[in-house]
């Protein structure tokens, strides 16, 4: 099967998947107790008032009708409007996507080289002190709950020493990149472990392989053997993990967003679920499903390049 036909089939399946995800999310959120009117009424839930709000928000119309309308809008790339604030969902999503994408991209830009370097360094000195130290540190970072790491970092570097801004409150993350340092460290902690360990395992396998031995015998310089021959093979299994990480980063890193006050997709998600703002949650579901599908497709294409044999 040619690559383009493969990609086309995946895209078609992806469209079905988006629809399925949106429907599933719709059903899930609809199963939540209460609706937007109740959430909006808050601590003044006078039943008459709730009823009036419900009517004002159009929530008294059959739910399937509203969902159908929303789907029809989606077909024309119209995400609808928030039932609560009346603002277009697309605006909300675009505003929240900014910080999320910035964080995700920066994390990946740092993560991939770091994880690869750590994995390769560990593999080249397998069992040595450097390898053991790298294992312990990465596994340790992997198992610290993010918010615990975040509070410690903020307490030490943000508040205690005052070297870095402790939060991103009210700042434009692009204008003041220093605010991103601590969130990035926290975001790097977990995937650094999972990816570097995969790279390390892949590198060990590759270094012990016939083709590396053959390349050495042919007199290929050691550096090239490691990085041009062994490394690409070691990366293939890590690609899928990078994809899962990207998906996680784009799916809203709620804890980091909350601790560092970065209003990204995760914050919007939590708020929208709390407000029972169905159009916003559904809009998010579309974004999440699309990114998941796109990221996995991309990962498969990269894997196709890295492991042409397996894909054939």
């Amino acid at each position, binding site marked *: 099967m040619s690559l383009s036909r493969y990609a086309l089939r995946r895209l078609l399946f992806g469209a079905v998947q988006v629809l399925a995800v949106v429907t599933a999310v719709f059903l899930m959120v609809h199963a939540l107790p209460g609706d937007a009117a109740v959430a909006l009424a808050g601590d003044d839930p006078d039943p008459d008032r709730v009823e009036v709000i419900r009517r004002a928000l159009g929530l008294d119309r059959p739910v399937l009708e509203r969902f159908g309308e929303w789907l029809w809008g989606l077909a024309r790339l119209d995400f609808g409007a928030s039932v609560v604030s009346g603002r277009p969902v697309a605006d909300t999503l675009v505003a929240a996507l900014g910080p999320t994408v910035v964080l995700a991209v920066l994390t990946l830009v740092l993560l991939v080289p770091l994880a690869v370097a750590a994995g390769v360094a560990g593999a080249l000195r397998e069992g040595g002190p450097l390898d053991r130290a790298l294992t312990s540190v990465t596994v340790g970072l992997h198992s610290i709950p993010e918010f615990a790491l975040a509070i410690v970092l903020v307490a030490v570097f943000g508040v205690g020493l005052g070297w870095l801004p402790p939060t991103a409150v009210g700042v434009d993350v692009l204008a003041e990149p220093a605010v991103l340092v601590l969130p990035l460290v926290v975001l790097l902690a977990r995937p650094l472990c999972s990816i570097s360990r995969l790279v390390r395992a892949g590198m060990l396998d590759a270094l012990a392989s016939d083709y*590396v031995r053959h390349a050495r015998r042919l*007199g290929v310089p050691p550096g090239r053997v490691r990085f041009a021959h062994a490394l690409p093979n070691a990366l293939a299994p890590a690609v899928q993990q990078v994809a899962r990480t990207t998906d996680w980063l784009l799916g809203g890193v709620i804890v980091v967003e909350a601790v560092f006050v970065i209003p990204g997709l995760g914050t919007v998600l939590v708020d929208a679920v709390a407000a029972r703002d169905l159009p916003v949650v559904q809009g998010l579901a579309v974004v999440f499903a699309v990114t998941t599908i796109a990221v996995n497709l991309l990962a498969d294409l990269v894997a196709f390049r890295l492991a042409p044999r397996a894909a054939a």
Partner: protein
Amino acid sequence: MTVVRVEGLRAEARGRPLVDGVDLAVEAGRVLAVVGESGSGKTTTGMAVLGEAAPGVTVTGTVTVTGRVGFVPQHPAAALNPVRRLRKVFRELGPPEAVAAALRRARVDPDLLDRYPHQLSGGQQQRVVLAQVLVGDPAVIVADEPTTGQDAITRAEVVAELAEVVNQGVALILLTHDLDVVRALADDVLVLRAGRVVEAGPADDVLTVPRDPYTRALIDAQPRLTTPDAADSAPPLLRVAGLTARHRAAHVLHGVDLAVGAGECLAVVGRSGSGKTTLGRCLAGLHETYDGDVLLDGQPLPRSLRKRDRVAVARVQYVFQDARASFDPHRTVVEQVARTGVRLRGMTAAAARESALERLAEVGVDAAKAERAPSGLSGGELQRCALVRALLAQPDVLVCDEITSGLDTLTQAGLLDLLAGLTCAVVLISHDMGVVARLADRVAVLHAGRLVEHGPAHAVLAAPTHPVTTGLLGHTTIEEASK
């Protein structure tokens, strides 16, 4: 000019000698074949010439090499980096002129360089590896089992390439147990047994008038390609009618019609990838996606093993090519072999064990060995155990898929004797015409999934009608290629 000289080579691992007191010398443009049964120290010796040793192995002795050593590993597919296009690798190895020269010498079409290794055929892969080795302009090449597991046609190609390189003045050390290749290429032969040299000398002398009994046994054990006598054909027991098999969407067998009589041996031959294994698996019920029929005594056999009752399963048995992989590494051999008796012959566990041990002893695997886990047995021994496992079912038809390839001639001979003594019908899948000639009553030749020739062994082997058959019979091809 002597390019390699090895004196007093000794290799040991944890005090146990692997190679002991090997001396050898090779001159430019000449071929030294190192032969011996499995584990006799061939690879260890070859590595020593390269200046390498397996982890945990210490090597002593002097190795003098004038010029560079190139190494052609056994499996070219494994030696080529799967993710890199060939051109890039060649660029790392030397200047364009040297690469171009090497490609010419190894007869590699430069157009192939834009491909990935998996896009090449086995023979092309082998030539590419050879070209890579030649870029460094080696004085000597060590080739480890370059022909193992290849069909006769590919084997002839490999021999031709190596011969050409030798003609260009490169010395060759050939590590092999394929005596045909030794005959075709070697100037000198060194026979190893348990790490010691038992005999050394010019190839013609050693192969025609071996002095050492071990050497003689090795040579005698090799099946010869002789034309068998005509035999009466038995009434068909197993029939294959219009078999068309698929792997997913790919058709790999097209309308194959075959028949095997009771007690007959049908050899299925063909090049690698021609569909031999698929055919065997269809018979055994291991491959289900096919159209057409497999009839036993005129009754169609269910496609899937799951749908075959125990009697039907017992009547058609299958022996796998890779004996080691066909055993569960966690249980003892006898335990596994005995299960056939329990499941297919309704014996008690004790009785099944009893008969298993008995049959194993008959094929030379004593109780002590049978009580070990598979890792404690050699490849040849395991292959015999696998055969016993199938035979305990008392099958009417036994399908054997290349069960002798990769074994040294002595071990192979033992297995062939065993097969020759069987009374059931045998479907023998092989690409070794010597084996076929020794055992087969009838021969079927597959090519690209089609049956291109099918008839009594004497007729097919004596008067092949299809070029593939001629190629597979290729005795002459090897001789021609080297001289």
